[in-house]
């Protein structure tokens, strides 16, 4: 191999490694940082509303604060692989998830504010699932295609329901039920 060949080869290897590094490490890292920032802002917005008296301490508000705090402090627990693993386990055990606390005790304006915050948090988590890994894009594309296919032609409804939004809702509810710093959910990361 001549010197010119060696240089070309080294450049190509550098390109390959660069692409790989960007795709599997830097993009997910960036998405995680964005998700963490958004969760922090939403948690603090809710907490400020509680301190200002615009929201009362109810189970639904506490539930939101617990989830947003978990996402803001431990974003590495909220990944596509973990959400997918939990979804598969729930499907296998025919478990239907957990019931969200009702916000019936809130006033209309309080309810509106909480729902807006809930929507934004869910959206941030969905974006994290899709952009947080290179497989996330593939997952999103697959679930979108499955949704476009008529229901009668689908082999299983479980596949169509495993959209990033559905995964996010399931995992988010579970993270609240089992505290993120608790022993059992931590064991999921090992």
């Amino acid at each position, binding site marked *: 191999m001549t010197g010119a060949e060696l240089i*070309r080869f080294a450049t190509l290897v550098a390109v390959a490694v660069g692409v790989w590094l960007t795709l599997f490490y*830097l993009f997910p890292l960036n998405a995680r940082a964005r998700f963490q*920032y958004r969760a922090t802002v939403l948690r603090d917005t809710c907490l400020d509303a509680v301190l200002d008296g615009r929201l009362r301490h109810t189970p639904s508000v506490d539930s939101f604060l617990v989830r947003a705090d978990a996402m803001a402090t431990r974003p590495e627990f909220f990944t596509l692989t973990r959400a997918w693993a939990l979804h598969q386990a729930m499907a296998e055990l025919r478990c*239907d998830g957990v*019931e969200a606390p009702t916000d019936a005790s809130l006033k209309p304006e309080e309810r509106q504010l909480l729902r807006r915050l809930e929507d934004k948090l869910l959206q941030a988590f969905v974006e994290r699932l899709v952009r947080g890994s290179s497989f996330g894009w593939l997952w999103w594309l697959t679930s979108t295609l499955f949704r476009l296919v008529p229901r009668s032609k689908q082999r299983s409804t479980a596949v169509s329901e495993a959209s990033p939004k559905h995964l996010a809702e399931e995992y988010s509810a579970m993270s609240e039920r089992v505290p993120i710093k608790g022993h059992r959910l931590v064991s999921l990361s090992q």
Partner: protein
Amino acid sequence: MTNKPQGTDKSSPAPSEEVLLATANTKYVWAKTWRLVLMILSLGLLLLMATPLAREIAGQNTNVNVNVSIAANVTLALTTMTGYGYGARQRNRAKHLDERNKRLHQRVEDLQKQLEASKLDNTRPGSAGQE
């Protein structure tokens, strides 16, 4: 599958939760293993593609050389931009937390001042006599 429980007790027994998490753990380990295998395979594939291409060009085909150079520059730019984006997000978060700390500190100070003022009002002879 829906998110709402169908006839299940809200306070579900601990063993079922344990079973769910144990199953999720198994699935997670399985998914993580496959993810690692796919990641290694993808890198191997990229390197395998690079080898014959490098032999092919070897400084003879100018067009391919230019393309390789462009690809290298684009990759470098993309990596730098992503790294910069990550830094910017972290800076934004740090700034937000700093501003929030200041606001909370101010709030605590205001509450302390209010508390002191109300204590002073209570200890005044006039106010004590009125009570």
